[in-house]
């Protein structure tokens, strides 16, 4: 492993139950490999997303936020 890959960011992923969360499920079933840095938070719909969530995530020290519908 090279040096810059030592750093493992924490990323909060807000995923819509019906879209990206489903995709994540399918990715798992299909045994697709992806980085383990994302911490998934399932939201009932992307419409539930609020700018407060994004700021709250940053406030608690995540390195990135990903919102996916």
């Amino acid at each position: 492993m090279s040096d810059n890959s030592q750093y493992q960011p924490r990323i909060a992923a807000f995923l819509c139950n019906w879209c990206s969360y489903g995709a994540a499920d399918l990715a798992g079933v299909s045994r697709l490999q992806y980085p383990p840095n994302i911490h998934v938070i399932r939201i009932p719909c992307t419409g539930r997303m609020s700018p407060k969530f994004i700021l709250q995530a940053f406030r608690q020290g995540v390195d990135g936020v990903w919102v996916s519908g």
Partner: protein
Amino acid sequence: MKSLLEYVGIEPGRLHFSWISSAEATKFQETVVEVTESVKALGPAKHMIKDIRKVA
């Protein structure tokens, strides 16, 4: 929101939005890789963090 956060100085690349249907497992996997790489390239977040852990 993305534009405002970037305006006040949060680096572009910390906040991502995407649109993936439940059938698009490949796109999901590709996006995770992309998001992770982009955040990794920026290094640890420096701003907006409320760190109160300073106790013996």
